């Protein structure tokens, strides 16, 4: 049997002390990591259980909300402050996985969950650069209906699977990190890396760096934010495309907008081109379409995922129509 050590951290200092050991991994709800260990994709020498760390959800001095990394996904989704002030986040979480998995999954684990690319999981039978650098990528010429069209490279086209992260990306979330060398904070959009020629390096985290929490800034337009996920079945399926959005409109003109896409990118995809294109434009389908197309212009479709470009454009338009219709 593959042996590994297990330690339960009682506080952050404890966690990072264990966490800097070689080949140690933090363990949240284990809904992803334990599967990866079973499939031998992940072979940690030690697990540091961080589910005892802060799981509180509380307001910040600047009017935002701070969520402890150990908070279970379901608790975040049902928290009144989240539902009222950041509904896109609650909806995104509820659109993901199943109730059982959401009850186990933590915020930290959700941020760092790994791709669902089937070749990545198939250790014995498939080649994968993300899992085994330099081996090749069986998805690029293979079954890639679920794969990304944005942020891809010639080494990897795997989609970042999280729903929650898409909402966080749209809502300007900040990730708080701790390390033996000290603490730091990063915008969520700076946490994940596009694969480039090192798909195995998935985030900017240093070895042993711990996610301690996520902070949502005060963002009044987020109170009317939403999340729409398009999938092959009504529940328990990863996104073909998803959209998190918030818009502020005044006199028919887009004053401010937040837009992020899921299912299409190798990272949770903040749609900045689309946002720039939209700001100052008259609301309406033509502007929404131009914005969505601006974002998808860089898409590199493969044999089976080309539909995602059109689907993303349509879903963005649909979501923006819905938000601005309500606005009217």
């Amino acid at each position, binding site marked *: 049997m593959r042996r590994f050590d297990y330690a339960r951290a009682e506080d952050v200092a404890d966690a990072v002390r264990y966490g800097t050991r070689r080949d140690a991994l933090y363990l949240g709800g284990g809904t992803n990591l334990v599967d990866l260990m079973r499939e031998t994709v992940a072979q940690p020498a030690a697990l540091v259980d961080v589910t005892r760390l802060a799981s509180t959800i509380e307001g910040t001095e600047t009017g935002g909300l701070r969520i402890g990394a150990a908070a279970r996904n379901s608790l975040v989704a049902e928290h009144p402050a989240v539902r009222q002030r950041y509904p896109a986040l609650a909806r995104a979480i509820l659109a993901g996985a199943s109730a059982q998995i959401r009850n186990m999954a933590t915020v930290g684990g959700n941020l760092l969950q790994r791709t669902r690319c089937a070749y990545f999981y198939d250790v014995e*039978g498939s080649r994968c650069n993300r899992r085994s650098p330099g081996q090749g990528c069986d998805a690029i010429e293979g079954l890639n209906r679920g794969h990304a069209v944005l942020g891809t490279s010639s080494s990897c086209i795997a989609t970042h699977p999280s729903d929650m992260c898409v909402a966080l990306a749209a809502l300007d979330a900040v990730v708080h990190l701790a390390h033996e060398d000290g603490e730091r904070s990063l915008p969520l959009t700076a946490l994940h890396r596009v694969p480039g020629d090192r798909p195995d390096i998935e985030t900017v985290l240093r070895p042993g760096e711990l996610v301690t929490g996520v902070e949502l800034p005060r963002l009044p337009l987020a109170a009317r934010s939403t999340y729409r996920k*398009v999938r*092959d079945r009504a529940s328990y399926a990863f996104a073909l495309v998803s959209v998190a959005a918030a818009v502020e409109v005044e006199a028919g003109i887009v004053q401010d907008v937040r837009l992020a896409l899921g299912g299409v990118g190798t990272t949770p995809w903040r749609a900045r081109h689309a946002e720039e294109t939209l700001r100052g434009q008259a609301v309406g389908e033509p502007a929404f379409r131009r914005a969505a197309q601006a974002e998808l212009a860089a898409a590199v479709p493969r044999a089976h995922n080309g539909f995602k470009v059109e689907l993303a454009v*349509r879903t963005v338009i649909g979501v923006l129509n819905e938000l601005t219709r309500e606005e009217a």
Partner: protein
Amino acid sequence: MSLEQAPLPLGPSSWAIDAGPDPLAARQGLIGAPLARRDGPAKVTGEARYASEVRLDGMLYGALAFSTIPRGRIVAMDTSSAERAAGVALVMTHHNAPRLHSTVELGTAERAAAADELPVMQDDRIRWNGQPIAIVLAESQEQADHAASLIDATYQPEPAITRFDQARADARPPALYQGDPLRQTIGDPWTALAESPHTVDAVYTTPRHHHNAIEPHAVTLAWDGDELTVHDCPQAVTHLAWSLAQVFGIRQDQVHISAPYVGGGFGGKMLWQHQILAAAAARLSGRPVRVVLSREGVYRVVGGRTSTEQRVAIGAEDDGTFTSLVHTGVVATSRHNNVPEPFIKPARCLYATRNATFEVKRADLDMLANTFMRAPGEAVGTFALESAVDELADRMGVDPIELRLCNEPAVDPSSGKPFSARHLIEAYRAGAERFGWEARSPRPRARRDGEWLIGLGCATATYPYNRFPGGAARITINRNGDATVEVAAHEMGMGTGTVQSQVAAERLGLPVEKIIFVLGDSSLPGVVLAGGSQQTAAIGGAITAAHRELVGELLKLINCDSPLAGLHPDEVGTIPGGLGRLDDPSRSESYTAILAAAGVDTISAEATAPEGMEQLEWSMHSYGAQFCEVRVSVITGEIRVSRFLGSFDCGRIINARTAASQLRGGIVMGLGLALMEETQVDGRSGRIMNPSLADYHVPAHADVPDIEVMWTDIPDPHTPLGAHGVGEIGITGTAAAVANAVYNAIGVRVRDPPITPDKLLRHSPGR
């Protein structure tokens, strides 16, 4: 049964042409009653013990390693780290596996249960991607799994055919399939088609599917000398015993299969390599073994439904009458078995035509043997056929129900035989009314609720009535008036034990509480496959025969002063708790009195059901009308089924509750076929890439609306109890009803399920 009823005559002694209807078919009382499953409490409390829960002393746990290439040879196998791993007792490969006799392919012998006749770990050849190359036995499952992951094989790959389009060019007619060449031409279909004023001619494709029973395949077994005891979850206990005996060169009675509960089968729970490997490894290690396939293991070792490419062409007169019906195509099969998905079966019985041609060809791939899966042939065949009928109706501007009903045949169009019972028109009329079919607009995109287009569709369901040879039963009555009924049948969750207890109770005139129904064991009478929806009729026929035998035995026991003395079985009938004279019910005796008077504790009789001659005389099928309402997003192409109704004609319903859940379950699986199920195979390697329930989508709760089912309840005069099995018909027609509803909603015809959003997007304007 109630007291006022006249004695119930015995069931017929044959089901041939001159046999009368089964008197039980017209009986009220327990027949049709919605009894709750008798094994329900044991299942929900966990008391019911499945094969993977049986613990044997000294048992080892097995794990399989699978090939990663589709074809070639194993040139080297490094098992050293696996052998050294903690807890490992045995690593078995083709190098050290005991020599085994060949398996016998299903359908080639009465009790054959194997999917193919390939050697099982006897040589270095790889024949499909995922073939077991080693089995590891260890003291715990985790140790076995880990050690299996350490096995390292080196292959010499050989060119393989792993894509349908490679194999298609060499498609050829299959060998006889259940005695049928799967090929027939009536009249001159091509000329008739060319001359028809209205035609449709389209190609439909369906992908591979997997059964995904909730209980993965599991076996716990032990040798005692040359005796093998097997706790398994098969759909055919007797077949499995015989088949394992062949492989190990022992007698059938030396193999004992115990399977009181089966956690779903759908056609996939027969003999596959894992049982043989478990038994071989147990022999080699000298210890009992349990092998439970992982979900991935199920995909690698157990074949599913194969893919099909079907052409349907129909020609029609102005009045809708079909002049020609063409249903032909190619199915993917493995090189080494013969289950050419017989998708032409529905077309052969559904519509009156003077000209028709039906043909199935096989295209051979290097793949795992495909097999039977719920309504093999009919599930995917009705998708193509019933989509095409809808397309024709749309082109002709006629109502698709009326188009179907004006082509109702008077006799079976392909065999010329009369139908034993066919009430499809009644099923359509009743279903259409209940569903509100008149609200359907003939024009697509006519109904809308916000971004959601609403469409209605319907399709015909059909599945044959089967009763295979070998049904047998033993009935034993004791002095307390309790009856034990024993049949080598299967409880896979459909309610067999409950339903057949009702039948036995009514047949014997006993309350259902007095019936003990024993099944799921190869030592019991009969060769009863839980497949082809035939168990209900097979057991029904067997109980009828055993009951007749039992009554004969009871009459022999009777003394000369009994009111029943000297009577022949056909002169008596069942009354509550005993027998009475048909011509004078007041002259009767209870079972307990007969036994007491004779001074015996029990009386027992066993009999085999007469051959299924009824199937030679009549064309025997169940039918149904499936109705679906869908909502389709104009923005995303997402499809949600909002309502479904199935109106069935499948003989007398014996238990309204279990039948409804069988029919509903079939429809749920049909929704999967329509909208999401697909075994994804990487065409380069022939490797299945979605061997998990996260990636192979089956309908989740949110995908399944309220499903209403109803039935004609008209007995078939030529079957035991007037009943037909109901396990498979529900899946048939469902996918076409969905596809037809999708077309009605959004005006896009999808001929290649699963109907996913991307396929609608291609053709839909998005607003």
